[in-house]
């Protein structure tokens, strides 16, 4: 994985002097580790990293990174990060957010940022609960979840992060699990390299208010049978015995067993993250246990123009053909008259 570049950092170089204050056992610790492992691989000087967050447990993240950081206000991290990136496209800008921060109060900024394809790396910690306010349901809580503000169970349909990203015309969507540091690190590196808005949903465990919410797919005992790690151009195969896979039957995905009914690995779908048509990515992102395995890895990664780059190009083009090069030029342009 290591490539040759002039900046030889180790994860330690990205640790700030602040004591990490998340609850012991919180999934956030592992996410922090994975990010600190990913950054040295990118060949970007440390001073060019900016971490922007909103409000919530996850949003304390910038304080623990020895980089430039801006801890914003609830829901607005996408907007702040957009400003940072547009102002200086040379920076590597990361947004740290949660399911409440990004999808409830910040939902509008989130979808518009994705739509504009500003080159941000958005790590969305999805624990399906409000942790910092001590346990209220969130926009990703499963319908029926009993919490302090839904004592009889929620009556709302949850958002699916991937569905929302694709619906907002997103070009990069990946999913990982907090505890899987190796997969997460790989994804963060790819997300950083992708030009455009990259959204990474992390299935994150809140040990206090929603403990084990992702357990039925992430538990070590059966995760191999209940998750599918997607790799570009590789067959969609999974299972402890590596014997299950996905095929397309009619308009739907179907789980099949390799070796049964004459099905071979060659019959399985091959993942194409770079396919612009989001149809299959949409289906993959929405797979739910128990009917399907939950898709992990990079589900969609399609290159496209970024907002900040197009803006710079537009400015460059207009500057080429203008006679207005300074304020003095501007103020004296058009109709003026002299008084003697």
């Amino acid at each position: 994985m290591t490539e040759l570049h002039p900046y030889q950092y180790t994860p330690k170089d990205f640790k700030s002097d602040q004591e990490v204050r998340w609850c012991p056992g919180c999934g956030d610790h592992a996410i922090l580790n994975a990010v600190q492992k990913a950054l040295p691989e990118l060949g970007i000087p440390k001073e060019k990293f900016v971490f922007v967050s909103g409000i919530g447990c996850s949003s304390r993240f910038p304080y623990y990174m020895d980089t430039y950081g801006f801890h914003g206000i609830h829901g607005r991290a996408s907007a702040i990060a957009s400003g940072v990136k547009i102002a200086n496209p040379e920076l590597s800008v990361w947004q740290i957010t949660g399911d409440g921060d990004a999808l409830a109060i910040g939902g509008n900024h989130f979808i518009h940022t994705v739509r504009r394809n500003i080159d941000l790396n958005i790590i969305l910690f999805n624990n399906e609960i409000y942790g910092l306010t001590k346990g209220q349901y969130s926009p990703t809580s499963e319908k029926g979840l009993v919490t302090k503000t839904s004592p009889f169970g929620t009556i709302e349909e949850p958002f699916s992060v991937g569905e929302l990203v694709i619906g907002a015309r997103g070009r990069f969507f990946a999913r990982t699990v907090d505890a899987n540091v190796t997969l997460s690190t790989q994804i963060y590196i790819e997300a950083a390299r992708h030009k455009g808005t990259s959204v990474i949903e992390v299935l994150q465990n809140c040990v206090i208010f929603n403990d084990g919410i992702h357990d039925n797919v992430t538990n070590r005992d059966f995760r191999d049978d209940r998750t599918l790690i997607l790799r570009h151009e590789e067959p969609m195969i999974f299972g402890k015995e590596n014997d299950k896979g996905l095929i397309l039957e009619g308009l739907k995905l179907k789980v099949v067993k390799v070796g049964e009914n004459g099905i071979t690995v060659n019959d399985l779908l091959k993942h194409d993250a770079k396919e612009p048509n989001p149809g299959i990515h949409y289906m993959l992102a929405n797979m739910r246990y128990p009917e399907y395995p939950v898709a992990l890895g990079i589900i969609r990664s399609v290159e496209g123009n970024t907002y900040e780059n197009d803006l710079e190009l537009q400015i460059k083009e207009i500057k080429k053909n203008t006679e207005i090069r300074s304020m003095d030029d501007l103020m004296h342009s058009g109709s003026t008259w002299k008084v003697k």
Partner: protein
Amino acid sequence: MGKSSNIVSKEEVVIRFSGDSGDGMQLTGTLFSDTAALYGNDLTTFPDYPAEIRAPQGTVGGVSGFQVHLGHSEIETPGDYADVLVAMNPAAVKANAIWVKKGGTIIYDKDNFTGKNIEKAGYIKDPVTEEKLETYNIIAAPISSMVKEALKDYGLDPKSVLRTKNMFALGMVYWLFDRKLKYTEQYFDKKFANKPQIAEANKVALRAGYYYAETIEALRPVIKIQPAQIAPGTYRNINGNTSTTWGFLAAAEKAGLNIFVGSYPITPATGILEEFAARKDLGVKSFQAEDEIAGICSALGAAFAGNLAVTSTSGPGLALKSEAIGLAVMAELPVVIVNVQRGGPSTGLPTKTEQADLLQALYGRNGESPVVVLAASSPADCFHFAYEAAKIAIEHMTPVILLTDGYLANGTEPWKIPDMKDLPAITPPFADKNEMPFLPYKRNCDTLARFWAIPGTKGLEHRIGGLEKTAKGTVSHIPENHELMVNFRAEKVARVAEKIPGLKIRGADSGDLLLVGWGGSRGYLVSAVRELQKEGYNVSFVNFNYINPLPKNVREVFSKFKKIAVAELNLGQFAGYLRSKYSEFSYEQINKVMGMPFTTTEIKDKCIKILEDN
């Protein structure tokens, strides 16, 4: 032409062009004022148009107006009452009759004063008698039929022909004020370079109107207004929104910073975002955000990244930005928030003017959240205060709210173009690259501003945010630290007073009455005070542009007057603010909340009443 025997000179005159939204009155007014400005008159203009883009034709709701006040001496306002009203339809008479001086001239399109249009305007039969305008100088010109006749051989469709009616009317007004047609003709040649037929048609209509006016006896005498005594220099007409935008652009250039604007369209502030968006030639990065909150938050991100950051809005948008302004206070980042005030609360009167967002600007946030508040006074001085707002924001590392209003935003006046080299320097307080570790909340001893460390600078990595911090930048809930930081932030804003000019008194520095105003109503107040002084009253005037902090000489100025009256377009917000700061004085109030500026006359009357009351 036999003009010379029939000319009278006047000091000043007010003309109001009025018609249906589609009649081109804004263009007519603009062309007239450009011609007047080129001739050397001082002038101020004000457009008055409906909130609806296309209100039902012929109705009073759809009337669009443009008032020009020009003169031989200094002109401070668009004028109260019109000497000449041009009314393209009966609804324009309905909307404006009360704004014409007794016995003034009303030019109207006779062809449009027909049954249906008269009814739509709410008249029964004859607007002139129903409005009791018989004693006025009424010029009923068959404008529509005259342009049809004049353009009958030009092969234009009937719609295009009628579209030149406004130029016929303008031609008549040019005759009345002895103006040359040259400038307007040049405008058409340029504007319709690719449609010479249209350019020619407009020029023909303009000339036809001019000669028609010459022919009829009623438009005499011709009124001559000599050029004003104006300081030498190069001038242009400018409206408040453009002037505001250019002030920021000038500040960015002077400070050597890139400029970012994050805004959301809102009346009457949209012109600022539009002008920024058009200025890619100067490298402006304009971002039309998904909402007001994203507007200011993106600006804050850009400020963190080292840009001069601006967000522009109007009252409802300022409300939405409140939380983020609090973040700017806490993060101590330079950002300027422009609030082009309009009638409120809520959606209120979006296209009308008011000064009722003062308290929102001063106090509309949670916690102890001081910001610098400035207010501009005329379309042209929006440039100066935008520049000042940016300079203060940058040098003091603080959010600044700049208040303008709908009246300033859309009004125009001639502006003496400044030379960039004469504008004061702006020095961003960049952090010292060699001073490590960088402490984000270490302060300049003089201003108490923190230092600006720009992402991308090696060794200055740091974190800021909305949580209370120590000087080191560590999150802290220690009670004493919070109090210390709250006091620092308050004192930092208070110390801006050291850098701002004192109040300037117009008139004697002592007397019976001091009229106090702030921001955009200055013109009307100055005009009123000037007239009162001429009439022998001991009245002086001060205008506040620096609202927080206040200038240092307030007490000294106030103490020399027997009475103080505060005039503002709200129910007394600035008066209340002054009471809280300088409680030793008592303040009379002159208030108006009708969505329009004061008139000079009403200010005069109220001042006289206050002077006479014991």
